[in-house]
């Protein structure tokens, strides 16, 4: 990066006259992009991880779950109250939250989605979208009534802490969240590949009839998939709470983004969703450096439609006839 001495903190070299003007400018420019890419990767990984549970549900049960954001909000409130009441380390609280949310996901599917699955062979996307939108309205507004409209944050040991590497500032909770998400993604992939329950889930996602013929109780598989999806949301919430706010409407920020990521990553593909999340994160972060960040958001939707039309199974999904 040229010989210029990069000062800590202030982006302008101490003695402007000493450093040749273009070099100073070029250094800041390059660092700016590296930083934007890294923050894009970190946040993108978290977007991907939030979308993973949707990819599971959408991939396996073909359920277009619009209440995904509301479930995520419930997970965040759960983690918030665990931290406030039990004063536990946020990443430890994720285990408790994940446990609770397994049952929440399990019974969410049992009470609402299953009756529809039982009635119609192949759920018309319309019924499920409207049903889950209705559920989202109920969950979000009950939360508004219970918890009020305040924005809440939690001061954990990690909030506001920053690592500084060669002039780049990386927020600790984001990095830890990213790494833990990566670990959990690999664990989930192993679970799906190695355990027979995991294979049952993948079988049901490929062909529900064939799976039933093989003696797999697809309704139980769906409930477990929703449960596993709930656990993932529990972990994702625990990774986000240290640096994010909690509010009844927080889920709305992630709903459409999760759908974009799930489709880009390929339906039901876990690593696909994670990688697609990172790609979206980078586009958002780098794109915003050039064009207005509002247009970047519409750019992502345009890519979404492009991908749907060109390769509906997503960037990484296999091209299945």
């Amino acid at each position, binding site marked *: 990066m040229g010989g210029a001495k990069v000062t800590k903190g202030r982006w302008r070299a101490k003695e402007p006259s000493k450093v040749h003007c273009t070099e100073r400018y070029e250094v800041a420019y390059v660092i700016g992009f590296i930083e934007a890419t890294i923050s894009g990767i970190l946040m993108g990984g978290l977007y991907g991880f939030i979308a993973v549970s949707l990819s599971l549900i959408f991939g396996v049960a073909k359920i277009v779950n619009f209440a995904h954001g509301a479930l995520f909000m419930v997970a965040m409130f759960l983690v918030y109250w665990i931290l406030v009441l039990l004063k536990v380390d946020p990443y430890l609280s994720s285990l408790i939250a994940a446990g609770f949310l397994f049952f929440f996901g399990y019974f969410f599917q049992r009470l609402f989605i299953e009756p529809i699955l039982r009635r119609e062979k192949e759920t018309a996307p319309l019924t499920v979208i409207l049903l889950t939108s209705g559920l989202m309205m109920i969950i979000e507004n009950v939360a508004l009534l219970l918890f009020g409209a305040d*924005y809440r944050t939690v001061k954990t040991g990690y909030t506001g802490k920053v690592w500084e590497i060669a002039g780049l500032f990386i927020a600790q909770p984001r990095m830890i969240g990213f790494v833990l998400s990566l670990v959990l993604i690999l664990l989930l992939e192993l679970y799906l590949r190695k355990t027979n329950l995991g294979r049952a889930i993948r079988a049901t996602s490929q062909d529900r009839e064939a799976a039933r013929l093989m003696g797999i109780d697809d309704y139980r598989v769906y409930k477990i998939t929703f449960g596993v999806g709930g656990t993932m949301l529990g972990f994702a919430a625990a990774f986000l709470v240290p640096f994010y706010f909690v509010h009844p409407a927080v889920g*709305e920020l992630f709903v459409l983004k999760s759908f974009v990521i799930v489709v880009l990553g390929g339906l039901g593909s876990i690593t696909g969703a994670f990688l697609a999340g990172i790609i979206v994160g980078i586009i958002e972060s780098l794109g915003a450096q050039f064009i207005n960040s*509002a247009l970047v958001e519409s750019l992502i939707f345009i890519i979404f439609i492009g991908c749907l039309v060109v390769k509906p199974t997503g960037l990484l999904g296999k091209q299945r006839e």
Partner: protein
Amino acid sequence: MKTIGIILLTFFCVFYYGLGLTYAQQEVKVGVLIPLSGGLAVIGENLQMAHDFAVKEINEAGGIKSLNGAKIKLIYADTRGDSKIGMSEAERLILREGVVAIMGAFQSSVSYTSTEVSEKYQVPYLVPNSLMDAITERGLKYTFRVERKGSLWAKDQIDFIADMGKATGKSARTIGVVYESTDMGQAIAKGIRKWAPEKGLTIGLDEGYPPKTSDMTPVVLKMKRANLDVVILNSYTSDAILLIRTIADQRVNPIAFLGSSSGYSDPSFIKEVGKLAEYFFDLTEWTTDLKHSPLVQQKNAAYKKWNKDNRDFNGGAAFCYASTYILYEALEKAASYDPKKIRDAFATIKITKGPAMMIPWTPIEFDAEGQAKGARMLVVQYRDGQRRSVWPAEIASNKPVWPVPKWEERK
């Protein structure tokens, strides 16, 4: 059996007679339009408390004397932050609830549309805190606005930056405006683009980000690379929290940050962000330590004691409180329930005394377009969680810290 009948009969007569008595005293119904659900509910609740406190004081002090002690009755309507709902709610208040006047809407776009409805039905509409210029630039006869126009907010911000430069010798050259792409954000950004060149300031960054942005880092990185001296920010509460935290994480160190109220003056912002808000400047219409009148501290203390989570007034709430008194003065002057007379009272009112004087300018009167004459703003700086007025000198009670210490040097 008969006797029981008689006793019952008399009991009913007395009861009805008594009820009739209290009923004799007429009620002045006033509509209030504010966001009570959706993203802005927390701000709406805050304003509701201020209105209620003012009406409690007015009614306890004997109501409207010129209408033989009629009590003010506030009827709230939730705009949900949606201008379409604001319009039909305004119509409902006028037609079904029969209100004689309306206050409200907080959001510029909602006030902008609901004032059209009150104009059509000729009911006076007092707007305590919406800044969009167009609200009082359409020649409407029934709209009166207390808040200063949005574009002039930007003028004050630019004047403040220039004054700070002169006062401390550390003058800014390039400024940036980062705003949530909503009606308020765009109004202020337009003002900045207009007034900055007049004080020789170049705009290094003009970034409108979409509402409901999930991550502020890209915008903050853009801000960092633009090497700005002063960053003017404008967002509602959720973005404000995210922005400040990301700015602290990324160690962005301009001379100063300058907010434009709304999110940055919301009590839950300060509570959540804590000491990260230290040294943050915020343009606002009011704060608790103004020295232009003792009423400021008196009324704030009374309000703090009255409300359940002993909150101070913030700018928005103080203006709702004071506006309710402006309405009271107008009702006293009009001495009638007829909205047209109340409107005329508003047009000719000139308040120099009473709790409405909490507002940092006197006298309180409206020009032909319904805009409060002499409306001005002030700048506060956050010092250990308190909003201390620092500009303009004649009403501010503290010296500003300019430039702002770097993030690394803060404890």
